[in-house]
């Protein structure tokens, strides 16, 4: 088999396996996996910038929250239907990532991390400041009748899983296509050697901006669907923690691998889930994993798999 057909078989296989799990999983894990799939969409969005372009953003929660609040607020205050609200969420994330990208990409390295962090903090404070509409930390619930998308009731567990799977599959395929495209290859070239890419005549800024916008829009899509699928919009999703989590998922799963975000998100979600049974200080797991990953396993799980067993893995 050629590398291409192997890749295709593997990714279609993963999607089919997730579909199969829909019929066999007990309720608790079924619900968990739906959440993991939506969050891996977020992680895949983050991976485009961090894994493939080599830019560390510490402010992706801003894009996730833009999607979530863009859809949640239009439902709550403008009477939008779920379809229009979803679109509003994605468009808000698109606009915000374009603005943040255009400004933040004027910096590089450490400054870029701090700038993205500061923009995301400003976004979080803005949500708190307009507590009259956003209900601040407490957040608000999207009522069941508002969560009907094209006649599909998203509050139903079975529908929710299938819609999450659809989103996940679509993002997986888009990422796969993107990575193999000319654009994606230029991004990897920038990651590997920015000066050389510049010397070859690529407009680095334009490519990076494209990556940030695509990544931010996918993150916003994940945020908008999270709100609609689980019916809750809250300021927690705009905090630094939600900028750190995708970093953790992607690092653990393997930065710059297409399947890494899913693996990392699933692994970390269950790890945190298990440890929260024993202690209120469950985030210690996140801390320990971050330190150990930087010390001993910078490739992450799928990165190691690629290095040892499957060199063709995208």
């Amino acid at each position, binding site marked *: 088999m050629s590398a291409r057909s192997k890749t295709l078989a593997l990714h279609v296989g993963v999607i089919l396996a997730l579909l199969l799990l829909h019929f066999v999983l007990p309720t608790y894990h079924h619900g968990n996996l739906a959440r993991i799939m939506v969050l891996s969409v977020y992680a895949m969005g983050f991976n485009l910038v961090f894994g493939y372009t080599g830019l*560390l953003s*510490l402010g992706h929660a801003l894009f996730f929250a833009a999607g979530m609040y863009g859809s949640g607020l239009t439902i709550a205050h403008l009477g939008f239907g779920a379809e229009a609200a979803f679109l509003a969420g994605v468009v808000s994330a698109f606009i915000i990532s374009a603005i943040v990208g255009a*400004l*933040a990409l*004027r*910096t590089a*390295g*450490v*400054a870029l*991390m*701090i*700038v993205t962090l*500061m*923009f995301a*903090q*400003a976004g979080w*404070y*803005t949500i*708190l*400041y307009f507590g009259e509409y956003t209900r601040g930390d407490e957040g608000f619930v999207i009522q069941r009748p508002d969560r009907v998308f094209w006649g599909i009731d998203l509050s139903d567990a079975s529908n929710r899983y299938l819609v999450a799977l659809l989103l996940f599959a679509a993002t997986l395929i888009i990422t796969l296509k993107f990575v193999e495209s000319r654009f994606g290859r230029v991004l990897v070239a920038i990651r590997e050697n920015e000066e050389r890419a510049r010397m070859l005549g690529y407009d680095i800024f334009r490519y990076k901006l494209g990556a940030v916008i695509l990544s931010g829009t996918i993150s916003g899509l994940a945020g908008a669907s999270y709100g609609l699928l689980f019916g809750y919009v809250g300021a927690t999703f705009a905090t630094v923690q939600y900028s*750190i989590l995708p*970093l953790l998922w992607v*690092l653990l799963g393997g930065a710059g691998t297409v399947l890494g975000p899913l693996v990392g998100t699933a692994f970390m979600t269950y790890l945190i889930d298990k440890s929260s049974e024993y*202690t*209120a*200080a*469950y*985030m*210690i797991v*996140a*801390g*320990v*994993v*971050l*330190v*150990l*990953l*930087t*010390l001993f396993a*910078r490739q992450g799980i799928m990165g190691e798999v690629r290095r040892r067993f499957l060199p063709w893995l995208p």
Partner: protein
Amino acid sequence: MEFGPHLLLAILEGAVQAAVLTLTAVGLSLVFGVMRVVNVAHGEFYMLGAVLAWCVTSTLGGHPAIGFVAALIIAPLMVGLIAAAADIFILKRLEYEPKNTIVATIGMLYVIQQVTLIAYGPEARPVQAPFNQRISLPWFEFGDAGFALTWPWGFGTTTYKLAVIVAAVVVLIGLWNLMARSRLGLIMRATQLDREMAQAFGMPVEKVNAMVFGLGAALAALAGVLIVPIQQAHYLMGAEPLLLSFIVVIIGGLGSLAGTVLAAVVIGLSDGVISVFFSPTLAKILSTLFVALILVFRPQGLFGKRDL
């Protein structure tokens, strides 16, 4: 209270905040300047200082001053040692590569914070100040009887708050002497200017790194000890000073100690004053945006000369 006394009170409160903020931010700036490390866990060292101060004072008992003086020595020392160990066992092995270092310090942030949650618990606990006399301040008025001194109700400060300001100034002068006059400071500055050349001249660059990281953390811890009689010790208290220190260090120009001190005083004061008259959340929105835009358009900071 009228506007005049109110403003003066806000400035006094701001000065206390500025004093503590200066110590914390100088620690962060020192670490960045010499090691080029952005330490996201810096706020947790501040928190550890406050929490350890509670541990020391509650174990020792007796007159509050005894426990407090002990805490002033023990807490920064312990935090400094913890940080130096973190440098040797984690950061050094990462060879200070920026992206990995920042990820590792994020991890350290969670580890320190959550271990504190396990060991110390989620409660906020007070530490008694060693001395705490109220001082009422006079205010002048031009009334019908001409110029007169009045003593508006609630207009005053405490001796402890004034002592915090004095202590911060003393520590800063000490630090300045260390950096400018001592051999150790010379080595640190040499490392900051040109790490490779310093190493080539046989300077113990690795030891300097561990020492600087420890010293930076100890300064944050000292700030934590100083603030804890005014604010209670809590395992999440590190987030706010971290953000403020970042703002200060960036506006002051990264790695420039003088710029950092100046920016800390300005920001600490204005933060105190602004949050008395405006919504603190709005102030935070504006200051975070301001910092982001400074980094975008003037990365050397308002006072600094160096690029990030």
